[in-house]
């Protein structure tokens, strides 16, 4: 598949086009220009590295939403074996914006839950752009409880612009569904590891993201509101999204400094979509490394640590009051 380049990646796109042209020439040319191609490829790599070394938060948000970025089901295929998808909330519907089921991780049974976006127009609509409705969160909760019952670790993958703001979603209790998951995840009696793989959009992300370890891909974002949403409220115009992205601190590097995530998983040069295989290898290792110490703990130790970790969120000062 041809790589889609973002606006700030245009110099890379031009170079890649040139390489493509040369390859085309190479095919029916007597002169060997493979050395030249190799040279340009190296240059493209270096250019990508250099552009990505100066990447801004808003540009990272673009990479996080890249149409070719691996989604949950890609990771399910790449990291697990024997995936058995389980559908439905048993009350209303099956929400395609959240997928989940049983799988094996390095041979071990686990429960996998994640937001799912669509690849083409039809698929995007089917997945509702990865924006879950209450039934999606209730399906997720059902799978969490299933994991608890059979003592299976839960691995969640976060990639959503946010919970769906629709009439039906409100009628069926979007707020309650999200709040219930926060409450249940806080005391779920199995290890829970969350990985933010793309967009970590607000409460809609958090509803499957409370756990014992939070990993984040290098160019993923995680924020309380989208940069566009924040800008339109606080600056009165969505055009200030780059400023909002900067101000809120939505990137993995910033969030790690703030102590809100545990580990950054490095992405291939130019983002996960440029080399999905390499991404799978490094995420698989990171997940295995995160899971091991959690499984060494007793369940009471695990829950106590999780509780203390949740209680530690927040920065404030304490003063003497008379």
């Amino acid at each position, binding site marked *: 598949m041809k790589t889609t380049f973002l606006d700030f990646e245009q110099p890379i796109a031009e170079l890649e086009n040139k390489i493509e042209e040369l390859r085309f020439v190479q095919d029916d040319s007597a002169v060997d220009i493979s050395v030249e191609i190799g040279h340009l490829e190296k240059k493209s790599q270096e250019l990508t590295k250099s552009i990505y070394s100066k990447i801004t938060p808003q540009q990272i948000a673009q990479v996080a939403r890249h149409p070719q970025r691996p989604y949950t089901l890609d990771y399910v295929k790449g990291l697990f074996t024997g995936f058995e998808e389980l559908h439905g909330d048993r009350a209303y519907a099956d929400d395609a914006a959240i997928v989940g089921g049983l799988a094996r991780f390095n041979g071990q049974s686990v429960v996998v839950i994640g937001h799912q976006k669509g690849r083409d127009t039809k698929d995007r609509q089917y997945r509702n752009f990865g924006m879950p409705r209450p039934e999606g969160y209730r399906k997720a909760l059902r799978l969490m409880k299933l994991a608890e019952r059979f003592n299976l670790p839960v691995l969640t993958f976060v990639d959503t612009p946010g919970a769906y703001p629709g009439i039906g979603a409100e009628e069926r209790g979007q*707020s309650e569904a999200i709040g219930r998951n926060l409450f249940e995840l*806080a005391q779920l009696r199995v290890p829970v590891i969350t990985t933010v793989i793309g967009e970590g959009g607000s409460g809609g992300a958090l509803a499957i993201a409370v756990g014992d370890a939070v990993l984040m891909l290098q160019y993923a974002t995680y924020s309380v509101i989208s940069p566009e949403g924040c800008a339109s409220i606080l600056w009165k115009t969505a055009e200030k999204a780059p400023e909002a992205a900067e*101000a809120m601190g939505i990137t993995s590097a910033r969030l790690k400094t703030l102590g809100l995530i545990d580990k950054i998983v490095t992405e291939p040069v130019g983002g996960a979509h440029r080399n999905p295989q390499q991404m799978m290898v490094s995420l698989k290792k990171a997940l295995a490394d995160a899971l091991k110490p959690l499984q060494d703990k007793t369940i009471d130790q695990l829950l106590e640590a999780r509780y203390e970790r949740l209680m530690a969120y927040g920065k404030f000062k304490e003063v003497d009051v008379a």
Partner: protein
Amino acid sequence: MSWLQKLLPPKINKTREPGARSAVPEGLWHKCQACGAVLYRTDLEKNLDVCPKCNFHNRINARRRLDILLDAEGRFEIGAEVQPVDILKFKATKRYADQLVSSKEASGEDDAMVVMQGSILNVPIVVAVFEYNFITGSMGSVVGERFVRGVKAAIENNVPFMCVAASGGARMQEGLTSLMQMAKTSAALTRLTQAGLPFISLLTDPTMGGVSASFAFLGDVVLAEPGALIGFAGPRVIEQTVRETLPEGFQRSEFLLEKGAIDQIVDRREQRQKIADLVTLLSRQPAVATAN
């Protein structure tokens, strides 16, 4: 200037500043924003800021809410020592640090939550109340921490916990830390549940976003004031997303009751009795005497 304005003598022809009120002294009268009835402010206050003509529930601040709910004797504040900091050095059109100062001046509170331990009709309880006038009652680190300290106090003293919500949602000026307050407050409630203590959640106008989507609906009993706007997404966001006009009364308390989202709608003037009745029922205590 139109010909009519030119004709009028200058005394009458004084252009009114937009928003300027008539000659009636500020504060003596109140015009109900729902029914338009002109009321004596003292009458309105005696009626707990509920319009005597149409029952419209005006928004009230946190301390007044606590005054209305709690018995006058034996109350003390929890978590006042917790004070806000500007974690991100956040700046939009205003600096968050400045906003904290101006909001304190405007509301008289140092953040968007006041927690008190006390009693309702002699039934001991801890009550956390949102201050909407402080940055639209948004939940940041201080709100989260005061809420948690309130829950802990309830557990230590073996008394029920109640929260009165009035909030626009998470405080985005604190970035992701504010989102984590949703997880923090909800997690604290797991301990209250384990201690077998009731959590009463009272939703007032408005209860939206991250507050709505965390502890607000985790109440063992969820109550709402009449006509309150309660929901996850704001009506404007929904309208822009679905490109439809929202149904009449959408996201109002009455709508939520019909959809099965809340247990009861309770008039402000009956809340003390209602809450005392509910918590004594839940904690298997004898009934309280009827309030006069």
